[in-house]
């Protein structure tokens, strides 16, 4: 009888060959003007800036820098756009939103490739998360457009007017959808300013609006840096501000708007606790931890950046986590097998590097898997800090990068205390097999979203927003509509 060979064979050294998504589907123009009143126009400021790919630092396109006169023109166009758009029958507005949703779906590969090129996120995320969700937001709000009376019975909902919307660079097209879809559904017109480092999908969205034959002026898109955003918020012609971004800028916006009676919603930073109990499904909790902090390179305001682990399972959990990190594939965002893409900008890379150095200086223990970083572009390896005290900067400040701080707790009450001990309150995660504990925790966690046995899940029907310095107002769901309406009843 043949004996099986001894089990000493090391197994196949198997590597995945590059599997890049073709970038031929996107052709950027050399220069993008401003999208105002349904037209693409040259900026009166005469200024342009370059949008680069953070993965290669190659220039992708020149983009207009909107100055004060341009902002004024955009608000003016939105004002006349509002007159047309708000007078349309609600079912007509729904028709345009459905059209936009379908066009986003039809052009989703192009938009996903553009998103990954301009922002550095892995194509599998832009393809499987950003684009489907962006389309879903338009579909969802298209459905509400002619049913607002039913969402708010007897309150006679009316649009606010011109909505000034400023969005961040971490989910450029998705944040656009979160802002534009409810605003249009409620009958408002929009002046949107995408982030300086990721303007290109918003400019492609201008083309989507054109293709959908959206009435001129309903959507206006102006590009620029923080000064453009500040100019927009200062403008006397706006009726609403919606901002997603840093807490610092959020505070500046609130100061600017004080006393002006302009309603505003702010979705700001976070330092979410991901709380893992000893009775959890451990392998799946590991996936949740990885998804919580390494999804989109940790450029997620609701990222689970503080891992609170019940002390009794700390060692096995860390062993599994290290093992899992070694399988993460960092590199070309357009490669379909890439798990971790490029850091969005040099400035962000510098901030992450500085905070990680502070963690080491304060005495936390750093772990990074063996991981080769590409030579060009902005990269940071997935990082785990253990021995982190609640008082360290890496446990307090938002890093907005692939950096996890691990702390322990002994009892559910201690977990709640530590989780709530932050200036922020955007999200939290709870991992346990015990349903009653999930409810007990959710009651006590001061966070806008509490995920149970999952993390970073979004749905247009589910309101999203924060507590404390994470901002106020909700986006998504019926609550999200309320932020774009006034009530006469």
């Amino acid at each position, binding site marked *: *009888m*043949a*004996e*099986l*060979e001894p*089990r000493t*064979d*090391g*197994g*196949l*050294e*198997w*590597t*995945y*060959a*590059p*599997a890049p998504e073709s970038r031929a589907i996107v052709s950027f123009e050399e220069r993008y003007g401003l999208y105002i009143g349904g037209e693409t126009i040259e900026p009166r400021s005469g200024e342009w800036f370059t949008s680069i790919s953070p993965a290669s630092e190659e220039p992708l396109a020149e983009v207009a820098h909107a100055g004060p006169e341009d902002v004024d023109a955009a608000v003016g166009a939105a004002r006349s756009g509002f007159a047309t758009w708000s007078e349309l029958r609600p079912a007509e507005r729904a028709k345009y939103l459905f059209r936009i949703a379908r066009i986003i779906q039809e052009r989703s590969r192009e938009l996903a490739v553009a998103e990954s090129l301009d922002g550095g996120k892995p194509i*599998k995320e832009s393809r*499987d998360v950003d684009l489907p969700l962006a389309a879903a937001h338009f579909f969802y709000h298209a459905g509400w457009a002619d049913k607002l009376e039913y969402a708010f019975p007897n309150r006679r909902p009316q649009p606010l007017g011109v909505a000034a919307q400023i969005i961040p660079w971490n989910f450029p097209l998705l944040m656009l959808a979160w802002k534009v879809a409810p605003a249009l559904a409620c009958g408002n017109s929009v002046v949107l300013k995408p982030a300086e480092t990721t303007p290109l999908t918003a400019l492609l969205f201008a083309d989507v609006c054109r293709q959908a034959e959206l009435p001129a002026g309903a959507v206006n898109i102006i590009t620029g840096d923080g000064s453009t955003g500040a100019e927009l918020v200062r403008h006397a012609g706006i009726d609403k501000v919606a901002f997603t971004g840093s807490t610092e800028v959020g505070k500046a916006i609130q100061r600017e708007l004080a006393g002006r009676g302009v309603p505003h919603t702010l979705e700001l930073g976070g330092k979410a606790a991901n709380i893992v109990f000893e*009775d*959890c*499904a*451990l*392998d*799946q*909790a590991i*996936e*949740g931890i990885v998804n919580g902090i390494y999804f989109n390179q940790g450029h997620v305001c609701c990222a689970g950046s503080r891992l609170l682990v019940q002390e009794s399972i700390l060692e*096995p959990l860390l*062993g599994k986590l290290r093992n899992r990190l070694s*399988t993460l594939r960092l590199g070309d965002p357009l490669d*379909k*097998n890439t798990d971790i893409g490029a850091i969005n900008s040099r400035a962000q890379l510098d901030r992450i590097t500085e905070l990680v150095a502070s963690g080491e200086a304060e005495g936390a223990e750093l772990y990074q898997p063996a991981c080769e970083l590409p030579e060009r572009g902005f990269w940071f390896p997935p990082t785990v800090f253990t021995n982190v005290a609640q008082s360290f900067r890496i446990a307090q400040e938002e890093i907005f990068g692939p950096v996890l701080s691990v702390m322990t707790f002994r009892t559910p009450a201690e977990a709640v205390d530590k989780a709530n001990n932050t200036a922020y309150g955007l999200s939290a995660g709870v991992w346990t*097999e015990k349903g009653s504990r999930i409810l007990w925790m959710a009651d006590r966690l001061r966070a806008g979203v509490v995920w149970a*046995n*999952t993390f970073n899940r979004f749905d247009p029907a589910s309101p999203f927003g924060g507590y404390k310095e994470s901002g106020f107002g909700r986006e998504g769901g019926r609550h999200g509509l309320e932020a774009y309406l006034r009530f006469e009843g």
Partner: protein
Amino acid sequence: MEQATTPARTAEPFEPRLTRIGAVDAVALEARAADLAKRSIKRGSKLEALDLIVRMIDLTTLEGADTPGKVAALCAKAMRPDPVDTSVPSVAAVCIYPTLAGEARRRVDGSGVHVASVATAFPSGQSPIAIKVAEARAAVELGADEVDMVIDRGAFLSGRHAEVFDQIVKVREACGPAHLKVILETGELGTYDAVRRASLLAMAAGADFIKTSTGKISPAATLPVTLCMLEAIRDVHVETGRVVGMKPAGGIRHSKQAIQYLCVLHETLGRDWLTPQRFRFGASSLLNDVLMQIRTQKTGVYESPDRFTVD
């Protein structure tokens, strides 16, 4: 025989100390499996994978109508899957019923292809233990060097875990030097928690491999259930150093599916498990699809299925 060792933290998988076996979250498990199924395997990586898949196949026939002639044809195919392309390796084993183990042994002897025989009242396992032990022993005496046993799902589902454990230990002893694969029949266990519990139990009782299915029940192997079992294998390995192999069986018909299994394996247990000594596919029609894909990778064209033998 290697001493059966239980994982320290995941607990002793026999009653009554069964509380710390660990839980599985079905939603997240399936999401992870679906995520890994999206890996894009191209060019050289694909050819390497296809070659490995051939080497990992337990080429199977388990029909009432099986005859020596049928098994002879299967053995010929197992040893030389593609007569046109001699670079295509042999499969790992042929998998047959015990009465045909002798015929299979004569056909494959000296080729490196193993003879795996099912036993223990396959597929139901509903026979007295004495008969199951005798059947396993007979299979080995007839020439099987691998035995694929089924667990007693009746005992498992009624909570008699110790009985299942004891039966595996007895069959393990009866197998002597032959390798033991323990079929959990995951399609009958109902939850991933039960699959995990049965996996730990089988490994603790001395399984060399754990295997999803008989192929007689739907669903047979799935990607998530395989991931669940691989995670149990990983836990046992990390905690005790014991090496246990994995065999998904049933329903894997296409190269693309098989490559997805390899990705799950690769990213759960790493390269040490990318060997037929630690991973098998229980399959029959899969082989021809893999041969076709290998030909396509090498020549750039798809050839007619008629150019691949039907055995």
